[in-house]
């Protein structure tokens, strides 16, 4: 029973973070038409910045917000420096093939990931660091028994819930949010409505960068920080996004929690080494049974 409770709690708090990662991927997919495989590399980079600030004596909270801002800026930079020139490229023989046109942004984002990981080496010697959050990592003790959730878990849950609510309000109620939704759905009609689609696209990169940096900040306290720790988060986020539907923001949240529970249960009831296989199983299952995902629309199937 204890194990079950622990698994549920961990599943919820981790699931919330994976929802953030998935959301970031979906935002850029909708806004720019690519899956940004470098996303968690950006998060790793921002988290290293935060870590360095903390190591140099600045407060956690300052580092926290600087990291999120850095993530947003890095996202915009990548859009302007790499992805924009990529999509403006004239037709060459190689690019006349539809499958190569789809492959090129994937390869570019992998290149970005490699560069970010190498930069982590250049700037911070790629050293593995601990990353302490100012919250207790031990469970609360209630009535003499240690509960399976910690104050850090509560922090994670509240931050993510707040972020999700903010995101929903942003997209449903604000003009910018409407502009973003419109551009993602039909770029031509959006342009004809006077929406500056280039700015909107940069904004999706910025928001995605911020969300993923937040996810990185929330993930690293329970593991160590190294250039590669967040790679697992990327594939979990990707799987979560596919499960929920790559073009659906609510879907990415659902997918995140599903993955959170699956991984949590695998951790508690099987062995941690089984995680990769579990993720693969979930991914293959969704792609075979319902490729568009739980909430995905039918015209986005690339399968």
């Amino acid at each position, binding site marked *: 029973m204890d194990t079950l409770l622990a698994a549920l709690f961990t599943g919820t708090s981790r699931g919330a973070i994976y929802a953030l990662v998935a959301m970031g991927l979906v935002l850029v997919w909708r806004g720019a038409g690519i899956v940004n495989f470098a996303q968690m590399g950006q998060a790793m980079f921002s988290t290293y910045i935060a870590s360095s600030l903390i190591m140099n004596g600045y407060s956690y909270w300052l580092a926290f917000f600087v990291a999120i801002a850095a993530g947003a800026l890095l996202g915009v930079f990548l859009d302007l420096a790499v992805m924009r020139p990529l999509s403006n490229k004239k037709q060459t023989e190689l690019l006349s093939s539809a499958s190569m046109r789809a492959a090129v942004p994937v390869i570019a984002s992998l290149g970005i990931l490699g560069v970010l990981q190498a930069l982590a080496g250049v700037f911070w010697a790629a050293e593995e660091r601990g990353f302490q959050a100012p919250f207790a990592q031990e469970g609360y003790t209630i009535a003499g028994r240690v509960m399976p959730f910690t104050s850090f878990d509560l922090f994670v849950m509240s931050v993510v819930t707040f972020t999700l609510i903010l995101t929903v309000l942003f997209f449903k109620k604000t003009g910018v949010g*409407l502009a973003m939704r*419109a551009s993602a759905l039909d770029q031509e009609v959006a342009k004809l409505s*006077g929406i500056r689609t280039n700015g909107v696209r940069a904004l999706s990169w910025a928001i995605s960068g911020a969300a993923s940096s937040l996810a990185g900040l929330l993930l690293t306290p329970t593991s160590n920080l190294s250039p590669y720790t967040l790679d697992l988060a990327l594939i979990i986020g990707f799987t979560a996004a596919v499960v929920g539907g790559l073009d659906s923001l609510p879907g990415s949240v659902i997918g995140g929690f599903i993955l959170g529970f699956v991984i949590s249960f695998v951790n508690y009831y099987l062995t941690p080494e089984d995680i990769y296989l579990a993720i693969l199983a979930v991914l293959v299952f969704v792609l075979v049974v319902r490729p568009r995902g739980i909430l995905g629309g039918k015209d986005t199937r690339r399968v």
Partner: protein
Amino acid sequence: MLEVRDLTTSYGSVVALNSVSLTVVESKITTVIGANGAGKSTLLRTISGLEKPASGSVTWNGESLLGKRPEEIVRMGIAHVPEGHAVISALTVEENISMGALFRRRTHKNDIAQATEELYTLFPRLLERRKQLAGTLSGGERQMLAISRALVSRPSLLLLDEPSLGLAPLVVEQIIDSINVLSQKTGLTVLLVEQNANTALSVADYGVLLSLGKVAAYLPADELKADASLRAAYLGY
């Protein structure tokens, strides 16, 4: 006033517009008619910035439109309702309309509310369905919505591409009438592309007959309508 001079637009090796010149007179309805593939849609798409011409010029009140992005051209007071897909099905009627005025939100909040109300008065069916997804609307309602999206920003020039496509004659009449009334009341300049030459020429002040990318005739509408030989040669009736 919209001035088009020697405009040439190609798609690869296909020349869609071949040195087209015309003037769209202020506050009047000019219609562009012609057979399928004559280049009518390309003309509108080049003016609104969706297509880049190979040569020629397009000026609106003296200012050149070439090289500007579509979203900037909208801000100059030119609204384009493309043919076919002009509304976003996954957004509600309300959202589709407010989409058209987003770029003015900061400066013209009250006017937008006013404009929206006027449009709901003009198209009451939209008011009824304002919280529904645009994808659930009928063809005629979608066209009304598309036009509303364009008009909510109070443009000075409306580019309307084949509003009658796939619609019942009664609905077409209603829509064209509304445009006519609007133009009379507000001085809106309209460039109307239409397959249905008869309907178009009955409301228009001027008519441009486009054939294979070239201007075959540019006359006051009633003259064009009355010219049987032109009609036979280019429109087949």
